[in-house]
């Protein structure tokens, strides 16, 4: 009994030692995987999902040309990212966001008012359109036409998302907000989730940004969604046009590097080309008739 007991005990010790070695080896392996560069001077970007595609190319070019260290840490809805930034500022996270790229200018304005972000620059513009799958033949020429047909499965962004606010702003102007709230089948957290719902057939029609349609089609071998029409609001279709902005986050450790990146995004031809290729409009003035939806 004594001999076998000792053997059993030593077997457990050997097993524990082996597992310790395995954990150490795997840990070193995981930490040594070739990662994107990160250092004290790294600019950490939080990017709205609707603009993440061109921004990743811009980041790559900036790092190559300027020996920079910029990484996109998080993508998601503009509101979701703003919430995370606020949490980081409140809790004092050192490794938090340095640059916030948003598709919701009202959200950015509110963050500026509280001093959470500063030095905001406009990168591009996007316009809401009624979108449907390629091959759909229904005559959805206006928002009222969509809302008048109860059989249509309509998807809109949630009131927390930029596209959702823009959609509601337009519906309110047209006196259709109440009908829209009743008729909608989906409240998506961000525009890309809404776009995917349209592609997969969960909804028949969705109000998307024009640039989102371009990006979704670019991700597929052939076009899958198409803009049925601009939203007809009696000549004020662009009223809810939103801007893509980039701002410095207050708790930024290395503002110089972040400013250089911001300048590259706003002035370089490459950045402009990438944004245009992704379906955005650049080099235009801020629309004057913008309406704060106030949702």
């Amino acid at each position, binding site marked *: 009994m004594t001999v076998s007991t000792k053997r059993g005990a030593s077997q457990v010790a050997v097993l524990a030692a082996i597992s310790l070695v395995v954990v150490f080896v795997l840990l070193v392996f995981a930490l040594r995987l070739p990662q994107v560069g990160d250092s004290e001077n790294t600019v*950490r970007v939080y990017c709205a999902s609707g603009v993440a595609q061109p921004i990743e190319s811009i980041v790559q070019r900036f790092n190559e040309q300027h020996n920079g260290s910029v990484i996109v840490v998080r993508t998601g809805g503009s509101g979701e990212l703003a919430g995370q930034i606020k949490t980081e500022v409140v809790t004092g996270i050192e490794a938090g966001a340095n640059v916030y790229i948003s598709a919701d200018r009202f959200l950015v304005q509110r963050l500026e008012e509280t001093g959470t972000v500063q030095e905001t620059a406009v990168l591009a513009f996007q316009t809401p359109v009624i979108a449907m799958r390629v091959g759909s033949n229904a005559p959805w020429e206006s928002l009222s036409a969509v809302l008048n047909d109860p059989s249509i499965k309509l998807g809109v962004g949630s009131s927390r998302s930029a596209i959702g606010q823009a959609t509601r702003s337009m519906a309110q102007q047209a006196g259709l907000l109440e009908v829209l709230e009743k008729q909608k089948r989906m409240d998506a957290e961000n525009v890309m989730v809404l776009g*995917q719902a349209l592609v997969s057939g969960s909804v028949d029609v969705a109000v998307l940004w024009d640039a989102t349609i371009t990006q979704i089609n670019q991700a*597929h071998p052939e076009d899958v969604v198409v803009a049925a029409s601009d939203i007809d609001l009696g000549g004020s279709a662009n009223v809810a046009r939103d801007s893509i902005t980039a701002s410095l986050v207050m708790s930024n450790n290395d503002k110089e590097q972040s400013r250089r990146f911001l300048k590259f995004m706003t002035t370089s031809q490459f950045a402009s080309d990438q944004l245009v290729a992704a379906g955005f409009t650049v080099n235009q003035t801020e629309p004057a008739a913008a309406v704060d939806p106030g949702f």
Partner: protein
Amino acid sequence: MNRSGNRLFWAAMIGCGTAYLLLILSMLLADFQYVGWDDVKTSLADRNIQYSIWLSLASCTIASIVSMWIAIPTGYVLARLGRDTIERRLQQRPWLRRVALFTRYLVDTVLDIPIVLPPLVIGISLLVLFQSPAGRWCDTVVHSITSAIGISQTRGVTYEVPAVILAQLTVAAAFAIRTMRRTFEQISSRPEQIALTLGASHYQAFSRVALPQAWRGGVAAFTLAWARSLGEFGPILIFAGTTRMKTEVLSTTVYLNFQMGNLRGAVSASLILVTVAVVVLIVTRMLTLNRNQRGSIE
């Protein structure tokens, strides 16, 4: 009448299971129909996805092994200090017995918190914890250790690879503990008591008598922890971020592709995730089956 009643009973029982089985298979079939083999091959050739596969495999294995370090002793203690044991040992001291029972109930509940909490809450809690003085000290220690062993690209825990492992561990360990506790509860403590009467120490009784009997439960706990880690997403999103080629694991790849409007890429990554999970589950099932059961499968 009796025979037809039995048939109806079995048809209902099998029907419920079959409906669920069909749901799972239909989902997988829909995924396979949506993307072709070419899409999966393209995904596998992508550097980002290769990185996320390697990081997933390494981080899940680390989280599972560490979960077992926690789960085996904790599960053993919870099983051996059960309600009956406490009541028997503290029969003469009712006040102390009540305190001990309450404490045990409390510990049991706290250990289950990661199972019942929404995953995002775990991520937020970890994020806040690592901004406390203790958390910042931990960040500094990890940075010092990684720098000392020549890994300069890791600057601490938050938003780094260690955050991925910690997020996975926090949830996986709870599942492993529950499995190990159940395993030890099903093993009679009598052989251990006999070993003690023959002069063995508690450690010897545990390592020689209890642990060998619990190996099958141990493999099940390890598998559960591994599978849970592989599917973990919410805490990783908040605590580790979703940086490509840095904290990107397979679940993050699905999310990132989806967020970028690349549904085919997201589904391809999902299929890779499913394949990895299924391979691990099959291997584990084969390991845990005894020779007779394995023979009947073959």
